């Protein structure tokens, strides 16, 4: 009696683990309506995905690569960055920097990552490489070195361009690398900040990431939105020793979607 019951239990467990294995197959799209392209990774391993290698406009998720390139190339946090006229006219999310104003690199970097400030982004890219275009060359070189084979960048801040594309898997790889840089990990977790221009102006900003402070374990990373890209997000959350990264490209309701996917991922991690 007991032996038969045990045999059944063992077989049932084997069956359950086969279901679990199926559910963990990265080709399985458990959430078809989450986004046009998405990937959910638990402790670095992709768990669920939809069109994970299909290129799409990444919008301001681009700034993760911008930050990585800045931090890896002779980064001087207290360098004084002069805001160009072009940078001061950047559209979309912005701090309101004026042409000719100077500010510290580290403060501009944080504003770029936390508030997605395009004026700060452009000022940093121009200062680092001489021009936005020269900086983009560095970005593409770094992307290639990272193995982001389906990605190409034409704008350092994520403005739509015909060949400005990336994929959920490429952005996942990029994020995992960027998180190993302490200055990046520290910046993306902030909910608010200030840029103090050397002329004495104080420009305050708050994070564009609504998960921060609202979802247990949320650590931020990057938001993005353009007409081509739709609403995008790279979300990071950690609970205990489990880390979840969600990349969403064109997710109509990215906050609810990200929250649901992150909760599901932690639940899946807990149940093995």
């Amino acid at each position, binding site marked *: 009696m007991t032996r038969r*019951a045990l045999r059944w239990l063992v077989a049932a467990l084997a069956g359950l683990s086969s279901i679990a294995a199926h559910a963990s197959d990265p080709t399985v799209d458990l959430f*078809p309506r989450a986004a046009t392209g998405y990937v959910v990774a638990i402790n670095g391993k992709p768990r669920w995905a939809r069109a994970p290698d299909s290129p799409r406009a990444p919008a301001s998720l681009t700034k993760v690569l911008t930050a990585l390139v800045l931090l890896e190339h002779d980064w001087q946090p207290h360098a004084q960055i002069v805001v160009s006229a072009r940078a001061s006219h950047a559209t979309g999310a912005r701090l309101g920097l004026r042409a000719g104003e100077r500010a510290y690199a580290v403060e501009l970097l944080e504003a770029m990552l936390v508030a997605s400030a*395009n004026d700060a982004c452009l000022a940093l890219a121009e200062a680092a490489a001489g021009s936005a275009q020269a900086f983009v060359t560095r970005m593409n070189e770094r992307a290639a070195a990272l193995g982001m084979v389906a990605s190409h960048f034409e704008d350092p801040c994520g403005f*739509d361009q015909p060949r400005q594309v990336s994929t959920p898997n490429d952005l996942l790889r990029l994020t995992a690398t960027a998180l190993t840089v302490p200055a990046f990990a520290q910046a993306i977790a902030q909910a608010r900040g200030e840029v103090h221009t050397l002329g004495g102006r104080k420009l305050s900003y708050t994070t564009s990431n609504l998960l921060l402070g609202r979802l247990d374990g949320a650590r931020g990373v990057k938001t993005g939105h353009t*007409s081509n*890209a739709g609403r995008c997000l790279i979300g990071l959350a950690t609970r205990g020793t489990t880390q979840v990264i969600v990349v969403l490209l064109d997710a109509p309701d990215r*906050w609810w*979607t990200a929250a649901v996917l992150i909760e599901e991922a932690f639940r899946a991690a807990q149940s093995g």
Partner: protein
Amino acid sequence: MIRSSIRLLPGALALALSAALPAAAQTREPGDLWEVTSEMSMSGMPAGMNMPQRPPQRICRARNSDKPPVGDNDGRCEMYDTKRTGNAFSWKMRCEGNPPSTGTGEMTYEGRDSYKGAMTLNVSGQTMAIKLVGKRVGECDGGESKRQVAAVQQQAAAAQQQATDARAMQCKGAVDSMMPYLLRAETGLQCDPKYKTDLCRKLQTPEGFSAVAPRAPSQMAGMGSGDLKEIGEFCGANVTDLRVRLCKRADEQETLDFLASSCLGYTRIDGSASAKPADSFGSVIIARECAGRTFSSPPAQQYRSFCSAAARQNLMQPVTADASKAGTGTTKPEEPKEDAATRGKKLLKDIFNR
């Protein structure tokens, strides 16, 4: 002083020992220790050929026992129809073994210290004759064997009870976990039918139904997974009708946990998978409490978990052709500045209305 203490020591030790012994061990019964010699012979055996003889056996028998002091082959033989007439005993016996055997025996006491007797055993059609000679060689505790038998019986009863309890626990576990497989006859568990009744009654409750509703069918042929279809068949219940009945009540009473676990995505009309979210159980609450809520101004606390479940349910729906859209090509990264009210209306609208 020291000498008197030494004199008292054996008595004290005896007292201490008797206190330490279990009560059963202290009740000795007067018994006689017999040494029994048996000489066997078998019918049809060629002349000059002898059966192997057993060495003398020592048998302890209580003085008031109604059984003769004859060996019982290490407990494998049972004596019955034992009769005593004066100094003489007669009995019948049956012995387990392969093959089993039956037989009769008799003996007569020659005074208090010896006896003579004979037994006849039939084994597979052969007859074995055994001459017995017994000699009393001392005294013994005649209750020992009784206690041993009682202890063995007690152990067997305890083991039997343990097995019964374990089976009951497994059967109850099958009900608690709503897994009918263990209640099926083929598992060999042989649960009382009341457990099936309990499980099927539990299925009719929100608690039981919601435990089963999220289960996916097992992917292994012939393997029970305890999913709704399997339990419905096991109980002979129409689970679609049951879902409609339970979910209607949950909708009316706003039992959010049950609605979230068992009703979202199923139509109020006939309990089938809902193609239109508006027809789904819970859609009224979703429209009232979840739709249009932004992540930064979330639903009221008591509806948050329910609204999250609704969002999850929606994310898992297949994508329809009109859900995909193409970009229009403007060039501002990051979301345009919108007032909170406009954004509140837009956000989540797609989730619940597309």
